[in-house]
């Protein structure tokens, strides 16, 4: 199973990590202690009820960190005062800023996996947009994994200062691998009046286990729009959390996934309304084929005093084969009374009546089903403002639909 067994997550490997500023060294040590002390997340807890990793062996070696590819869309970021660089490089250059934000939103002690991440992470992306600066075109990091039996710890720290405006895409990709782990963390600070659009596109190959935690805090009158696209990995658990911390903030969280084969997707979301007068909306849509399994569990929290909250949460699942399985748990916890909160969830097959209608118009059944699935995703895609991301997702959906269903996977 483990092709690079020479190095694993022990103290010796920890000592071989490149030199780092003192604060980072301390953080690694603390995280390593947490990692050693913490048990794997228990399926007895609500958070891990549908994904049991108690028997998950961390038989991976830290991957050689190649340079993740960063794309600036040919913009002169330096002239704008924008920092967009490797996270460790930033830790050396602007230690105060990194120290303030690294693991501030996602503490290392959150789970055994975030602790592991804190201890063994190398590289990552640091994006800082100063006050009032607008970055016209999207910036992007591509994290790539190429060796069997290795682990990678992608980390993005994104800070948009007051009134800043930026679009960022995290893209994860690999070929099919014999056992690999991607243990990712994304921390986003949206300053007062700032606008951030964030997309993560997960296209790991088969054999990859993806465990991602994304958390954003949204300031006063700020706007955060996030999109999570998940097509890859054998097991993908993606947590996306938005905290509405300042009055008048707004958040949109979109999700698209397509599961096939024996893929297991566990999507978790949090819309946490701490400040009054904020708006949040979430829409996750997914299709399932073969013997795949998808779980959506979302939480809307409205904290005491967060009056005039408007929160909506919607999860829709289209089940395309007999052995696929979808679970949906949209939760609400409301502690303020002057609110508008709602959620909706559905799990169901392609509507027979719609199929019948299309077939009666002479469209073959396969084609009709494909049209319906495309239409199902269109509601989310229509809300994606990034042209290239939307187009990419459309192509990926068509590719999934074009793929012959796997037989006898169950």
């Amino acid at each position, binding site marked *: 199973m483990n092709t690079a067994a020479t190095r694993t997550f022990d103290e010796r490997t920890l000592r071989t990590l490149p030199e780092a500023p003192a604060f980072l060294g301390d953080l690694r040590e603390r995280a390593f202690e947490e990692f050693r002390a913490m048990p794997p997340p228990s399926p007895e807890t609500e958070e891990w009820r549908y994904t049991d990793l108690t028997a998950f062996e961390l038989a991976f070696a830290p991957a050689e960190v190649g340079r993740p590819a960063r794309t600036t869309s040919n913009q002169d970021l330096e002239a704008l005062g924008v920092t967009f660089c490797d996270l460790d490089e930033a830790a050396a250059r602007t230690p105060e800023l990194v120290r303030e934000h690294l693991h501030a939103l996602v503490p290392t002690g959150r789970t055994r996996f975030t602790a592991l991440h804190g201890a063994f992470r190398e590289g990552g992306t640091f994006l800082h947009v100063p006050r009032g600066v607008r970055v016209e075109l999207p910036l992007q990091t591509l994290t790539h994994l190429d060796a069997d039996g290795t682990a990678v710890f992608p980390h993005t720290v994104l800070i948009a200062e007051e009134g800043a405006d930026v679009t960022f895409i995290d893209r994860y990709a690999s070929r099919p691998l014999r056992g690999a782990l991607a243990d990712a963390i994304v921390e986003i600070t949206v300053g007062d009046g700032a606008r951030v659009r964030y997309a993560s596109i997960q296209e790991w190959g088969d054999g990859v286990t993806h465990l991602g935690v994304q958390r954003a805090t949204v300031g006063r009158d700020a706007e955060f729009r996030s999109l999570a696209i998940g097509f890859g990995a054998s097991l993908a658990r993606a947590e996306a959390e938005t905290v509405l911390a300042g009055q008048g903030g707004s958040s949109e969280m979109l999700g698209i996934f397509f599961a096939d084969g024996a893929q297991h997707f566990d999507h978790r979301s949090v819309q946490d309304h701490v400040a009054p007068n904020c708006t949040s909306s979430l829409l996750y849509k997914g299709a399932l084929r073969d013997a795949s399994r998808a779980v959506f569990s979302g939480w809307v929290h409205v904290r005491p005093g967060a009056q005039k909250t408007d929160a909506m949460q919607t999860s829709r699942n289209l089940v395309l084969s007999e052995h696929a399985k979808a679970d949906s748990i949209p939760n609400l916890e409301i502690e303020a009374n002057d609110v508008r909160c709602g959620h909706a969830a559905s*799990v169901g097959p392609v509507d027979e009546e719609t199929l019948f209608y299309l077939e009666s118009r002479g469209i073959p059944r396969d084609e009709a089903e494909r049209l319906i699935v495309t239409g199902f995703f269109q509601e989310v895609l229509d809300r994606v403002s990034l042209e290239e991301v939307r187009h990419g997702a459309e192509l990926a959906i068509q590719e999934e639909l074009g793929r012959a269903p796997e037989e006898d996977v169950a």
Partner: protein
Amino acid sequence: MAISQEEHLKELSKGYRFDWKDPEHPVFEPKRGLSAQVVEEISSLKDEPDWMRKARLKALKHFEARPMPWWGADLSDIDFDNIFYFIRSTEKQAQDWNDLPEDIKGTWDKLGIPEAEKKYLGGVSAQYESEVVYHKIKKELDDIGVLFTDMDSAVRDYPDLVREHFGTLIPANDNKFAALNTAVWSGGSFIYVPPGVQVDIPLQAYFRINAENMGQFERTLIIADEGSYVHYVEGCSAPIYSSDSLHSAVVEIKAMKGARVRYTTIQNWSTNVYNLVTKRAAAYEDAVMEWVDGNIGSKVTMKYPSIYLLGEGARGEVLSVAFAGKGMHTDAGGKAIHAAPHTTSVITSKSVSKDGGRTGYRGLVRVEPDAHHARSNVRCDALILDDESRSDTYPYIEVEDETAALGHEATVSKVGEDQLFYLMSRGLSEVEATAMIVNGFIEPITRELPMEYAVELNRLIELQMEGSVG
């Protein structure tokens, strides 16, 4: 006032003529706490068959082995060692009218509850004058072959029927509180409706009030045989004062092929009671099972009536209304497990919280593999009346069949300003207007209640609204 409840009960039991058979226990002294000995004593006092005694003892082991639920309401204040697990019904009338909380007595007055019934509700008297009505109904039921009795008598009188069904839907090790109930149960109702028989009046525990139907650990078993119909009504909308801090009932219902069972509960325990109840029904081919479940009182309620749709074409419905005021946490909901093709379920939940109360909907809709063409719809609405109160919604949807179509929707809101304004411009006070809006909000539930219950529930909501606004 100087003597404790314990001493008081001891005092009472001294003068009581016991008629049990076991010479080794000449006097049963109520005592706090739970042990195999207490369970043995309960069983021997009831002169039960050996299988029931063994079932109780086995359940006790499950209870002891099980951890407390880590989810749901806070149960950490329950002191299992400080509870009377069995008190004879005659001993229960130990309350002094003057000791009852004034607010409860006031509510009874305002609801217009008759004096004798008030005394019963307060635990001051064992019965009010329902005897005559009860016997008349009993005779009518006997004539059509319906068995309707308390559970203790059923174990004695219909041992085969009870043994065949008891604990089959809710096994003793189902959960900690079902285990507790199985170990120490007492009272509750037993109903058997023969094939094709339609019981056209609602059977109300009310009518056989002298039986131990409102105990702490009641156990109810209802079997509606093929093609029959019965509506059972449990509880009442008037607040029930209980000095017992823990109420943990188990209700099992079987709706056989083509049968229809409706089970209505209006629970209004006083706000010192932990109400932790397991209710489960099985609906076989083309059967219909309906739970109408109102939770108005108690300190903590955890109750999720479930329906196992086991036969093709079975239908299930849960209507749940929950209210939580000051210091209350009402965690209610419903479950529908689709285990056969072409089954349908509908869950409707309405909750109202005020004065710092917390209501929750917790539900599960599950479609088993091969339960093809299942349909389910869940609708939860919550009304929060002030900024100290809270509402939670935890709906679980689990689907293992691709032909299933499930939907869930929920909303949380406050009383609309424009609605209030409109009603007040018509001359209603704010309290009256709010009460009217809340009554309208829970109307989908009240319209399903027998008339007298609906009237009482509406009046109760009006009372609860008093002092809540302004």
